[in-house]
């Protein structure tokens, strides 16, 4: 029997310091952040440039 592993993911959204945007707790109601968001592969590329 053939086993298939599916990898399901959406896009990604990160802050300027490469944290997951969704996990950021704002300090004030009008708090700001830098953002990178888009296709999965494109954001992986952004991450690779921030690791260098």
């Amino acid at each position: 029997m053939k086993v298939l592993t599916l990898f399901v993911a959406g896009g990604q959204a990160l802050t300027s310091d490469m944290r997951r945007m969704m996990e950021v707790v704002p300090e004030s109601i009008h708090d700001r952040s830098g953002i990178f968001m888009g296709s999965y592969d494109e954001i992986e590329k952004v991450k690779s440039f921030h690791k260098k």
Partner: protein
Amino acid sequence: MSPTTSIHFTLLTTTYSLLCHALQFSFKSIAYYIRRATLINLTGLAGSSNVTGDDQKKLDVIGNDVFIAAMKSSGKCAVLVSEEEEDLICFPEHKGARYAVACDPIDGSSNLDAGVSVGTIFGIHKLAEGSKGTKEDLLRPGTELVAAGFTMYGASTQLVITMKGGGVNGFTMDNALGEFILTHPKMQLPKKRAIYSVNEGNSLYWEDPVKAYFESLKYPQEGGKPYSARYIGSMVADAYRTLLYGGIFAYPADKKSPKGKLRILYECAPMAMVFENGKSVIYYKSDESTDIVCSRRSSAHE
């Protein structure tokens, strides 16, 4: 499901759908005013400025008033944050209200007079157990959002909404019916696409990794094709295109704005939720361990 949980569930969903009705009403009203703005002298400045220090447009003021009125009359919103209001707005008169809403009624309003697409962005939180609706109900991470999305007032009015743990659905406003029709069910963000969207006018202020990244898109290694640039300058419109076609949208923090420019509560977090929930199968592994890219949308275009 026990009878009590089922009653509880029904009550919750009724509450939620009433809130959604009020949201839809505000989108329809804002769309109506935007589309008539030039005819009824609603273009230009209102003569005031908001929290951000932005000059308020007449439509900013109207959009904000419409949104607040809709949330208030829904009776289901306990507390509200608007881009146009310095403080949060509480509705203590609605005892049964269990939701906290953050919104930017007209995002990208500096584009309005030029007829460029603008939008409304919103995020919905549930009040904490026992809370009557305070700032703390909104100072939560995006992972706790119950629902989020945006409406874009473009060539057509498009509503995109996602719920916690769910998919992303897109609706188009049918002006004759006055209803949002489901036209983009289960939206899936393409796995990759050679489009970048960023305000390059700020590149002087960018940090080195950001500069290096965008350089690599424009000057790819030998044999590679450079990316296309698409920047409308209206976050909702740039995000909507990225959602449909793929690519990247960025507004990095830089030396001029070390904290970034976009707002977490009613710009970044709701968009992040939409993007993360636009899930598709991006590859699968068979037992022979061969990776096969099978993102349906991206492969169709390549």
